[in-house]
């Protein structure tokens, strides 16, 4: 049964129908890419699935449960985590703290326990820190060591993207929604990140949905590709199928000009 599914999803902003009747599904452990020209509604799709907006119609089903209409923190707690197109970290918190915040929804020490530093709270805090460091180690040696205590805003662009992914991982999700994870990266970083996404699936068993523009990444990492244009799903299939699909090409490049009727 698909772990994440949308049925007839609808969302409009003012007069603009950003998402029109989109059916989407992904099985546990799959990696699916969503592509499409700018303004196709891809980020809006993520925003609705992750709870930032409520859908106007249709359903979002997570493991069979309808999660439309819930708050983003509820959805993250349920097991869907995301990153943002324009990396949104907590710039003045340290690298480690950014990731530790991700563990918030998986821990439970309340006010009283924190004030009294009960043994269970101390244990939990240690666990949070351990888990955070463990997750950061996933990225090699870039985000560990002295980096842990540096405020996030000193990081380079690529590192910030990695940190955002780390933070999402810290929420122990089942599904990761990555919004243009390689935007702004140079070729070497892009290759690295592509490998990383693969490892996210193979080592950590995440189900991943990626919005991407870089076709090399899409080709290198996806099991399936979904194409959106103007809020509508216009194609779905393997990379090979989709990349040769006429409608897809037309959506990106337009139709050749019809010159006969112009004179």
């Amino acid at each position, binding site marked *: 049964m698909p772990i994440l599914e949308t049925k007839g999803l609808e969302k409009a902003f003012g007069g603009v129908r950003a998402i029109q009747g989109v059916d989407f599904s992904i099985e546990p452990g799959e990696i699916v890419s969503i592509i499409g020209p700018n303004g196709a509604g891809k980020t809006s799709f993520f925003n609705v699935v*992750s*709870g*930032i907006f409520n859908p106007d119609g249709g359903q979002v089903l997570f493991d069979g449960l309808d999660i439309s209409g819930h*708050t*983003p*923190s*509820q959805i*993250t*707690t349920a097991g869907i*985590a*995301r990153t*943002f197109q324009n990396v*949104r*970290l*907590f*710039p*003045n*918190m340290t690298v480690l*703290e950014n990731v*530790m*915040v*991700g563990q*918030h*929804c*998986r*821990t439970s*020490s*309340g*006010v009283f326990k*924190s*004030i*009294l*530093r009960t043994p269970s*709270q101390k244990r*939990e*805090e240690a666990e*949070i820190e351990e888990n955070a460091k463990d997750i950061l180690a996933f990225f*090699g*040696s*870039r985000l560990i*060591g*002295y980096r842990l205590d*540096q*405020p996030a*805003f*000193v990081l*380079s*662009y*690529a590192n910030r993207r990695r940190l955002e992914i780390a*933070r*999402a991982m810290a*929420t122990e999700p089942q599904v990761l929604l990555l919004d243009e994870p390689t935007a702004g990266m*140079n070729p*070497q*970083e892009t290759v690295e990140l592509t490998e990383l996404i693969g490892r996210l699936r193979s080592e950590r068993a995440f189900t991943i949905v990626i919005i991407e523009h870089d076709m090399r990444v899409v080709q290198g990492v996806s099991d399936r590709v979904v194409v959106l244009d103007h809020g509508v799903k216009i194609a779905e299939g393997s990379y090979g199928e989709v990349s040769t699909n006429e409608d897809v090409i037309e959506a990106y490049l337009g139709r050749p000009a019809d010159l006969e009727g112009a004179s």
Partner: protein
Amino acid sequence: MTATVAPAATPTGTTGSTVDLARVIRVGTLVGVGMVYVSVIGLLATFNRRLVIDPWLSLGYLVLFAAPMFGGLQFIKREKLEGLEPEPASINDVVQAAIVGVIGGLIAALFATIVNTFPDVRSVFPNWSPELVELLTLGLGVGPAFLVLPAISAVVAAAAAGTSFLPERMRKALVVGLLAVVAVSLFQPVVDDFFDWLEVVPDFLYTPTRAIGVPGAIAVFVLAAGLSYFRPRGKNGLTRRLGSEDESVRRRSTIITAVIVGVAMIALPRFLGGILNELLVNVGFFALMALGLNVVIGYAGLLDLGYVAFFAVGAYTTGVLTSPLSPTWDPMLTWWQAFPIVLAMAALAGLFVGTPVLRMRGDYLAIVTLGFGEIVRILLLSDWLAPYFGGAQGLRNIPGIPIFGTTVNVNTPQLMVYMVMAFVLIAAFISWRLENSRIGRAWAAMREDEDVAEAVGVDTVKAKLTAFITGAVIASFAGALFAAKVGSVFTNSFEILVSIVILVIVIVGGMGNIPGVLVGAVVLIGILGGPAQPGLLQEFGEYKLLAYGALLVFMMLKRPEGLVPSKRRQRELHQDEFSQDAWLDRTPSAPGPSVAEPGRETF
């Protein structure tokens, strides 16, 4: 960056011998306006009653001539740029400063003339009087004032500018010496009590007018300046060690500071007289409330302007439950018995205030909480609810706090101080523990970017409500203690003003930072005084709130992170400076970008 850039005409100083006329005129006019302002709002007259150095210098004249002093200092400000030498002092700056003084003095003299010519405006401007003319012209009359005022102002301004010729250490010593003289003079009550306790009578120090005498002034100056000069590491060392990156050094100096402060706090009430203990109690109340507001604003980033309402809830609940005269509630509880109910009511109040504002933008939240605060006050004052809360009469006969056989109330100032301090410690402890916990991180994330925090799994509803409730509970500590101490509650103690004063303390002291908030309370309430309570500088009287307002504006413009900034805050507000430094220097402990893959740290 070993640039040998020839310093172009930087905005803060001028090279060569040109006089920047426009700037001089501008600063001079400002100085003049400042001097007129100080006179016309009555500051000069009121402060004149207090002598700083007997018999020459009164506080009024100190403030008056502070204007040309600051004007002069403007011309020796140097921007500190990395790798460049600051510009050397030049006689040019002193000249410009002197001219500024002259302009300022002339404007002040002109104003004195105007006041002298139109004496009939007294009915509208009560300070516009012959006395003012007397003061402003130093008793010499309007004519001579045109020479005297500019002359003195010029000298003051030039002297201030002239300090740039002194080597750094000497300058610092000079400033410390002068400040020490002013401080010892103005804080005479404390110093006096201290010497009383030591049973040493420093006759030479103070004169009958409670100001420092000339010999005393000289002695203090020499002592303070000398200490500063010959032990420059004294103060610096401590603050540097407290701010050190090294964990163990920082911990050790924090513990030492805490112990010293602790001993002082325990010893202090013993030798202070009644009035000063009263002051300490007030400082304590505000410190307590500031700690609570710090949780709401500093940690969670929610600008609550109606905070005084929680204080009122604590006070009135205590009053209703413990006073025999309470109109509706019969069985008289003791303070301790009432206390858990007080906490519960406060928590409910926090919930009640927090829930409607959960989805509001920052400034709207501020105004709504302000509205809540006022609604509570108006209701408590109303005739409608008078049967429960006493209306304009308030609640009276509130008994004190029974402890260890005695009762702590208005008659036992020393015990009261200890009681309040104990609660301050508890509140500080609670804040500290919460800051470094899971909820503290959630608050920090929420403060940075609420939407993203929500997306990362932080339940912002719970986090915000927790903040409000914690803040409310801490305020109710203060409320309950206040009710017991004063023995009665009236709504005058719960005006918006109090919320704003607490806000100023939190912000000026250092938002989000416990030592900062405490320092803020001590400095502001201790020196300036609270809305209804005099501080050490009693002369401030009506000008307290003016000072609060001015301080708030000043801090926001120059140093928004507060007097004692938390590291995070400083980062937040000066991000560009920090980023640059991070770019330029690696932490010494790490051997550079120690990344396995060669040269991959792209910037």
